[in-house]
């Protein structure tokens, strides 16, 4: 489902100028956003970006200091009581000393549009451990139990806060396959993550959050293009004309370090490029012979800094 086809429908989630302050920290800062039916949305940001606070506000676990949060046009609590929201919290605790089946049974009993317990267990892939005590589970198994609680009933919106924390690669893949089934049934899915790859693979829309503000809102491809800058480093021997290097295409930043003023010295050049292939190609085109060439992706944290810098440059 494309976003253009659904913008006219009532928003599943609507944030209007929402702020939440802890002491001097603005965890969420004037956030305005709308989620539409059927979207799979990733809330992407580094640790401390305000992802968890945003989800807590959405779920009514926290109250905004200013602005309004609406879920299906009502308060978060009303939406939950109506059984429209299923949620999985980051490291959300579970009830100890009961079995997986008993706990999921409780989740079903507390959901107005509950599925059968056996179905919920099967879908979450925990039928085999149904009789195990909750406090005897591995981290990944506990995550699946939390997922089962979030999908105990026919909710229209599923909210997941860093759901794959503590899972190994195969568990992660299996988890997202299960999650995709949920999305394919027409549900709106919102998940927080700090993995760009996860957002890229799963979401059809990515919201980038940084310091409590919405930095970017677009398809994963658009975000990747924005955050997809690469870091290129190489050494050049002899005379280096910095002005020439600055003329390289797709450059976003460059620094040249001099190891000595004398001829025959080695200069280390570090640059960032939005199209590393083209930049390196042009480098050779200049007749230069870069040594120890390294091309690497930017970490998400650096990508955010790059996007932030770009946004600020645009505003000024």
């Amino acid at each position, binding site marked *: 489902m494309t976003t253009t086809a659904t913008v006219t429908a009532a928003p599943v989630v609507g944030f209007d100028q929402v702020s939440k302050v802890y002491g001097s920290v603005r965890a969420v800062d004037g956030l305005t956003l709308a989620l539409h039916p059927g979207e799979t949305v990733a809330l992407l940001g580094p640790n401390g970006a305000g992802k968890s606070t945003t989800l807590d506000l959405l*779920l*009514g*676990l*926290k*109250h905004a200091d200013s602005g309004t949060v609406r879920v299906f046009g009502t308060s978060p609590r009303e939406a*939950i*009581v109506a*059984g429209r*929201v*299923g*949620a999985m*919290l980051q*490291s*959300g*605790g*579970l*009830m*100890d*000393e*009961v079995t997986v089946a*008993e*706990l999921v*049974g*409780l*989740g079903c*009993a*507390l*959901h*107005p549009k509950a599925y059968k317990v056996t179905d919920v267990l099967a879908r979450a892939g925990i039928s085999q451990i149904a009789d195990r005590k909750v406090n005897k589970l591995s981290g990944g198994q506990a995550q699946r139990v*939390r997922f089962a*609680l979030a999908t105990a009933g026919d909710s229209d919106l599923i909210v997941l806060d860093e759901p794959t924390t503590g899972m190994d690669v195969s568990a992660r893949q299996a988890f997202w396959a299960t999650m995709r089934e949920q999305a394919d049934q027409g549900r709106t899915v919102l998940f927080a993550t700090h993995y760009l790859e996860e957002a890229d693979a799963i979401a059809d829309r990515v919201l980038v959050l940084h310091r409590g503000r919405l930095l970017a809102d677009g398809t994963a491809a658009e975000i990747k293009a924005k955050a997809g800058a690469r870091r290129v480093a190489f050494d050049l021997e002899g005379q280096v004309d910095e002005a020439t290097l600055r003329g390289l295409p797709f450059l976003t930043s460059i620094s040249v370090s001099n190891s000595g003023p004398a001829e025959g010295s080695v200069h280390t050049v570090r640059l960032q490029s939005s199209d590393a292939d083209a930049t390196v190609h042009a480098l050779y085109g200049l007749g230069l012979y870069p040594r120890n060439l390294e091309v690497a992706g930017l970490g998400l944290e650096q990508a955010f800094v790059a996007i932030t810098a770009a946004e600020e440059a645009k505003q000024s």
Partner: protein
Amino acid sequence: MNSLIKLELARALRNRKFLFFSVIYPSVIFLLASSQTGTVDGTGLSVASYVMVSMASFGALTAVLMGNSERIAKERESGWVRQLRLTTLPGRGYVLAKTASAAVVSLPSIVVVFLVAAAVKDVRLEAWQWLALTGAIWAGSLVFAALGVAIGYIASGDAVRPITMIIYFGLSILGGLWFPSNGFPQWLQDIAKWLPTHAYAAVGRAIEQSQAPHAQDVGILVVFFLLFAGGAAWLYRKDTLKA
């Protein structure tokens, strides 16, 4: 909410250690402490019937205070309380389910002491007295259930056990549940008579003596109930806003 009560109860009944200390242990102390014959000074009650009320009260206190305070503090910390807030369970449902399941365990802890006292120590009371005693001690345990909830909301997961233990033993011993408080020095007796546990056992003994409970004892229990329940409600609200 019934589903949560059922699960809380199943969990409590599965916990052998908890069941031992709340249901079996009071009867064991009863047998040890009621070995003397004769009466307790100033009450006209036999040692056995005096200690029976003490231990029934102690058992009920254990059942409602010990499990809940620790569970609430730990489940608040682990995030289970938050997870429950994402369900249709009404806000107070969590505390009510905890209290209800504790009340189900406290009833056998009272009755088992009575059965042991009647069968082994020949304690004999009128039928109405047995019923009134059961009802009074059961209902009175609500005071301490509210205290348990309040402790659960005030203490952190690490601190909750020692805090509960200090309050539990303090209330049990100073309130005269273990030894008659009239053996205490006078200054301690003056303090002890204002404790809710002292009033709790005193109400039971008044029923054994075929008397109406003293207004002061009932008053103390009511005041403490309002204090603990009010405190628990306030702390619960504070915790909800913070979480």
